[in-house]
């Protein structure tokens, strides 16, 4: 199979020329036939083509880098490899006040009306709210309405909230499907530049509608999960947020740490489970099926696999007003597995009583688990 020495480079150039022509407009069936003929001439042509075509296809993933950047702005070199969200560099005009501190929402770009209103004290704000029985409540901010209509035509922040034990699925105006877990609250602001969701409480799953020009950003506790079009869930933990990605790619950014140091940006492919806190970001990459398990709450289930009982109980308590309390440390460390319907605390407790050395003491709004 003797190709001469200059041959391989020439072949590669020809393959690249074919690819660039196919990438242009006006590619016809006849062009394809000619390409096929060229590919059939030799295996050398074929491998050169396969290699370049694969590289070109991979390069489509660069789109993830463009999420959140204004169209037409080609970012400077070198910002991908160093820590820090690229948008910091590229979207210069963002008001510096909006990103000060770890308020939980870092507003980017020109639009942050909703964020400014809701951001500073999410917990107090939530507790002052009357306890709505209804699952989803639309809050219209009268004050910002008049201004909003004028300056932010597409951007009226809308709040959704679920009570303990409720689960609510709702379409957002951009076509995204959002599923709100028990005792959760989001504020959604759609602008021309960005789709911004402030996760103020609990957990939410998003099947974000594809819109390369308008990144989908979920902010919580000083972290931001940025997606172009993908399936992922974000939830608040006691000391940070958890992000689970089941499809596509999400970019996770964080506010500067307590020492003022910039946090690196993390890219999360499907199957990732990321835990972000002040101390940094820990990522576990599982199979997508394993990641999906963490989201089985959407179907009414909690899935455990060799899970410490303390963790499982905390999960249950997210969904139920009647809380399970661990009475003995030895009970906390027991490991359990299986799928449980989260709405049925009683069945779960009875299973524990049958299968483990656990005694349940039922008193009022609590079930206390003791060592038997």
């Amino acid at each position: 199979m003797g190709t001469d020495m200059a041959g391989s480079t020439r072949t590669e150039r020809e393959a690249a020329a074919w690819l660039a022509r196919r990438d242009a407009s006006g590619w016809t069936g006849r062009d394809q036939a000619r390409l096929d003929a060229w590919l059939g001439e030799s295996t050398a042509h074929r491998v050169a083509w396969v290699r370049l075509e694969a590289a070109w296809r991979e390069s489509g993933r660069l789109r993830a880098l463009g999420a959140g950047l204004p169209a037409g702005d080609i970012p400077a070199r070198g910002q991908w490899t160093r820590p820090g969200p690229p948008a910091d560099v590229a979207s210069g005009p963002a008001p510096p006040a909006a990103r000060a501190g770890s308020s939980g929402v870092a507003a980017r770009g020109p639009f942050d009306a909703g964020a400014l209103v809701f951001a500073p004290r999410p917990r107090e704000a939530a507790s002052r709210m009357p306890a709505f029985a209804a699952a989803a409540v639309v809050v219209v901010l009268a004050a910002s309405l008049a201004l909003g209509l004028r300056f932010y035509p597409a951007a009226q922040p809308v709040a959704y909230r679920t009570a303990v034990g409720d689960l609510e699925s709702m379409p957002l105006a951009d076509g995204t499907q959002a599923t709100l877990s028990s005792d959760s609250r989001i504020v959604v602001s759609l602008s021309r530049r960005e789709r911004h969701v402030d996760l103020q409480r609990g957990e939410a799953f998003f099947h974000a509608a594809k819109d390369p020009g308008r990144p989908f950003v979920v902010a919580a506790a000083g972290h931001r999960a940025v997606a172009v079009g993908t399936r992922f869930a974000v939830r608040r933990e006691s000391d940070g947020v958890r992000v689970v990605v089941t499809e596509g790619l999400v970019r996770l950014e964080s506010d500067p740490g307590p020492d003022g140091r910039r946090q690196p940006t993390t890219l999360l492919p499907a199957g990732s489970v990321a835990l972000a806190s002040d101390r940094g970001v820990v990522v576990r990459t599982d199979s997508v099926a394993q990641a999906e398990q963490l989201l089985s709450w959407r179907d009414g289930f909690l899935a455990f696999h060799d899970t410490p009982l303390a963790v499982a109980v905390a999960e249950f308590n997210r969904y139920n007003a009647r809380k399970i309390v661990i009475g003995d440390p030895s009970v906390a460390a027991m490991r359990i597995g299986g799928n449980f319907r989260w709405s049925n605390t009683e069945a779960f407790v009875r299973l524990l009583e049958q299968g483990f050395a656990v005694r349940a003491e039922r008193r009022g709004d609590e079930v206390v688990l003791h060592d038997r």
Partner: protein
Amino acid sequence: MDDSLDAWFAREILVHEGALVAFLQRAWPQRAEVHDLRQETYVRVYEAAGKARPAAPRAFLFATARHLVTDRLRRGRVVSIETVGDLDALNVLMDEMTPERRLDARQVLRRLAGAFDRLPDRCREVVWLRRVEDLPQKEVAARLGISEKTVEKQVAKGVRLIAEHFYGNGTARRAEPARAAEAEDGNGHGRQHPD
């Protein structure tokens, strides 16, 4: 998972290009010929895999490269005891040269970003508008005020350089971006040192 031969080849073979090129550069004294040896290796692997997919693709790739180099040495185009000696040592070293086996999506993106950043300015602009902002070539041309033909040329150039850096991880032809094979390398003997 796409199980066609082409997809298999990209997934199981091309990902080792960095290690393959490093191997060839050390095993073959004429640096300018490495590009051709790489292609020849790919041709042999692709043809063999068309008949039966090797169970251990990476090992098969390197065995193929080694045979190819040995064949060429035997054919007397280059006679160098030193080189042959190196070759034996390389059998052992092969696995150490690229410890990573398969890239996860994050590493893929990092590597792509690195490849992208190494494109010349004009080429980089074209690739960004075409691939990230997804503008058709025609609109890229209008945006940059250049002809469509130029855009097409830049795309062709861009894809070659991206492949080189993405698959080769920048191991190959660091110093000579385009005219590698034409230039007869005068001082290509012995070990290659990174420039």
